[in-house]
């Protein structure tokens, strides 16, 4: 019996144009929490996808319990008691929790003595017991579509446990959770460790590693930089190793200079498709030179507020004023010309047309007016030089310049393109929704700097973010949204992270 439960030796995986993993060797002991730290594109997910059988390595070998194994699919990996919680949950929304968990390995019973039938009663009982045993309480008969994200994550964990996984891979599990939910999850991970399970945690958040992990491997550009004992390494050291240079963990934020109100939202109500109020009677004001941040757990109406202000969603009630002018019912283009820039949550679905070129995407706010077009005829030359200018100013990395197909660019550069396009409008109001989602430390730093520059220029900034750290770092004023209502609005300096977290859970006055 080997000392290590999992060994990955000299793993190399190439994709066209890049080496995702280059000669990476890691060894994981039984019963430890092993963290993989690295920026996006560092190769963490690829390495774990190899361990989980999604990719096959070009070189190198994998040993489980000291035996050499070859995985052709995740089924093979699951047979070796390896389980994985993906960042994007793999659940069937209309199915119940139990149905999701037993899917593929349903307990059977014979109806009328011969017809194979799913024994749902037994399954429900099993799941109920399993969830209690690990403190992961769920109601087995709830439908996935009706339960919040944190419960869905528990279902994913239960799915692994039900399949008897001993080695559990968590891919960025905290990205979608509130601080309180994160505490809970880390507690669960700790319980699992005590139960003898081996945990592999993929993350780029150093504080979580400090709190839970035993050892930590740092990856950068596909290479293993080092393995540290978490107790002996400082947060600063880990951050520097991850980025490969000294990082400023603190932002240089000047004191705010508030000006006239730019955006005034009064009693705003927004309904969704089924006429349910997703935003209820929300009122707030954003002044020039102010970063107004809306904090809240995902799905509490943040996106709808942003969409309503930008004109993408209809306001069912209330008024929206920009620079004193009522824009509640004006079309999208008039609003953007009146001075609204909007960086939407979903880069590929809303912010860009992924199969068009970078040039066309950069021109989306301008193509319809001179000098980019006259009398309905486009001037591709003018658009091109505009695109080239933006590529330079905002340091957008693109393989074929303005002709690069946007989809082929990395997420960070896609985001830079959107932010560049929107900031270049020099609008009175800029709405940022989740501007740094899925980006690495370097890119986040850069985007935060750009947001503050816009604020110092005198623009009003509406920042909507699920990352509490981001809200705390950038906001001058914080509003906390819970179930479509603005529970609390206060200057940022008067609030602590824990307080905001509590409001996010719906606790009114602490």
């Amino acid at each position, binding site marked *: 019996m080997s000392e290590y439960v999992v060994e990955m030796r000299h793993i190399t995986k190439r994709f066209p*144009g890049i080496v995702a993993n280059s000669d990476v060797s890691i060894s994981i002991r039984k019963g430890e929490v092993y963290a993989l730290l690295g920026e996006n594109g560092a190769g963490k997910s690829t390495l774990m996808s190899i361990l989980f059988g999604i990719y096959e390595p070009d070189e190198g070998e994998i040993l489980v319990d000291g035996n050499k194994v070859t995985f052709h699919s995740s089924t093979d990996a699951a047979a070796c008691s390896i389980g994985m919680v993906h960042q994007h949950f793999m659940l069937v929304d209309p199915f119940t929790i139990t149905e999701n968990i037993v899917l593929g390995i349903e307990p059977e019973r014979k109806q009328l003595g011969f017809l194979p039938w799913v024994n749902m009663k037994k399954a429900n009982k099993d799941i109920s017991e399993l969830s209690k045993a690990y403190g992961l309480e769920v109601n087995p008969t709830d439908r996935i579509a009706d339960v919040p994200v944190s419960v869905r994550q528990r279902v994913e964990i239960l799915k692994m446990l039900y399949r008897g996984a001993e080695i559990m891979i968590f891919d960025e599990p905290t990205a979608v959770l509130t601080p309180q939910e994160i505490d809970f999850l880390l507690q669960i991970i700790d319980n699992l460790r005590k139960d003898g399970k081996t945990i592999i945690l993929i993350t780029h958040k150093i504080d979580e590693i400090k709190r839970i992990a035993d050892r930590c491997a740092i990856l950068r550009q596909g290479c293993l930089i080092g393995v540290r004992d978490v107790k002996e390494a400082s947060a600063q050291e880990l951050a520097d190793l991850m980025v490969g240079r000294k990082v400023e963990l603190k932002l240089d934020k000047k004191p705010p200079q508030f000006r006239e109100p730019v955006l005034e939202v009064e009693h705003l109500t927004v309904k969704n498709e089924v006429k349910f109020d997703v935003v209820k009677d929300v009122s707030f004001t954003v002044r020039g030179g102010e970063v107004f941040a809306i904090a809240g757990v995902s799905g509490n109406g943040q996106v709808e507020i942003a969409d309503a202000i930008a004109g993408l969603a209809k306001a069912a009630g209330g008024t929206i004023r920009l620079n004193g002018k009522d824009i509640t019912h004006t079309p999208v283009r008039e609003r953007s010309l009146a001075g609204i820039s909007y960086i939407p949550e979903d880069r590929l679905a809303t912010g860009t*047309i992924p199969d068009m070129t970078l040039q066309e995407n950069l021109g989306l706010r301008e193509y319809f007016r001179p000098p980019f077009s006259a009398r309905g005829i486009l001037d591709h030359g003018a658009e091109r030089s505009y695109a080239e200018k933006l590529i330079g100013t905002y340091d957008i990395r693109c393989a074929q310049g303005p002709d690069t197909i946007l989809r082929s660019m990395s997420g960070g550069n896609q985001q830079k393109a959107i932010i560049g396009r929107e900031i270049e409008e020099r609008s009175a109001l800029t709405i940022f929704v989740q501007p740094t989602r899925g980006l690495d430390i370097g890119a986040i730093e850069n985007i935060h700097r750009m947001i503050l520059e816009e604020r110092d220029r005198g623009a009003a900034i509406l920042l909507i973010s699920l990352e509490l750290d981001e809200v705390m770092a950038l906001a001058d004023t914080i509003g906390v949204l819970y179930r479509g209502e603005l529970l609390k609005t206060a200057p940022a300096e008067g609030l602590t992270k824990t307080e905001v977290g509590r409001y996010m859970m719906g606790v009114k006055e602490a």
Partner: protein
Amino acid sequence: MKEIRRFLARRLTGRHASLWVSVIAILLMMITASILLLGMGKSPLTAFKTFLQGCGFLARENYGGGSGQLSDLLDFLNYLTPLILASVAFITAFKAGLFNIGISGQMLLAGFTATVVVGYNKELSPFIAKPAVLLIGLLAGGLAGALIGFLKYKFNIHEVVSTIMINYIISYLTGFFINNNYVDMMTRTSKVCSAASRLTLTNVMIGDMKCKIPLGLIIAILAALLVAFLFRKTVAGFEIKAVGQNRRCSEYSGIRVNRTIMLSMGLSGAIAGLAGVCYYLGYTNTIIPKILPSMGFDAISVALLGNGSPIGAIFAGAVVSIFQQGANFMSSSLGVAKEIASLISGILLLYASCGNYMRFKARRSLQLAADLVPASEIPGTTEKKEAEDDDQ
């Protein structure tokens, strides 16, 4: 063999990949058709030759009285004209992400309206009648198309569903009127339209050949060029493409999505209307009641083979027309059933629709050719993995 694979893989990932997909589809079709013909004991070479002879690309051994290579070629162009238009019509809607399978219905409606309003009016001079036919074609088709766009945005009715239904409505409604009012008792089709209104000049003597001159061909090529210009150079064309590729982002950018959908659908219908008048008042001069022109569906395949490009549609239309038009002569000289022509175009389109698969295979084989190829030579894949990584 290795060199050929390598060559194809490069072509299929290169700049003119879409053109190569069509070329390879045609080659594969010829191979498959050859096997088929060999199986029937016929010489594929002779078969392809007779197809070309039937369309006037090659001279036949002997011609009947009043016909010749030129008249064959003009017959071919006469068929090609509405096919190009129909295919351009499909492309116009397709760029907006709309699948207009109602081209047949729009063609029929336009052809019927023009026949009734202009074609049966014996007094009009050709100089008034022909433009009037075109105008009515544009209007009738355009309105039918715009209606589908309207149903889509107002009631969210999927265009495939509404066009299928409207196809039936048009087919039976026009059939009803033809049978009641305009039927020719001998042929059981509608009465023929006047020669003045017909867009194809018939019985024109060139030398000793009786030829048909398809005036609509100029319109068809102009339409293809205009639509190409629309999508390459105009704001409206850009907005149609944007809506077609990402409706939500278009809305976000301030494009009036509904108006754009109506516009592209109306435009598509209008061009289909032109195809309709070129077909019913050109290629033929009568309408068979309750039959939708199959050309409206062939147009979809032609658009596919032409890679969704209006200019490509001219060439793809020509390829498909060779088999449709040349079938008669091929059939009579080889003694093979004429339907083989449809079979061959079917095979061709099957291969054409495998375009993405071909490209995928090409990329794969280049990747497997080990990392000997510098990444910069595999376009479109360079940063893809990274992008996926970031999204996770």
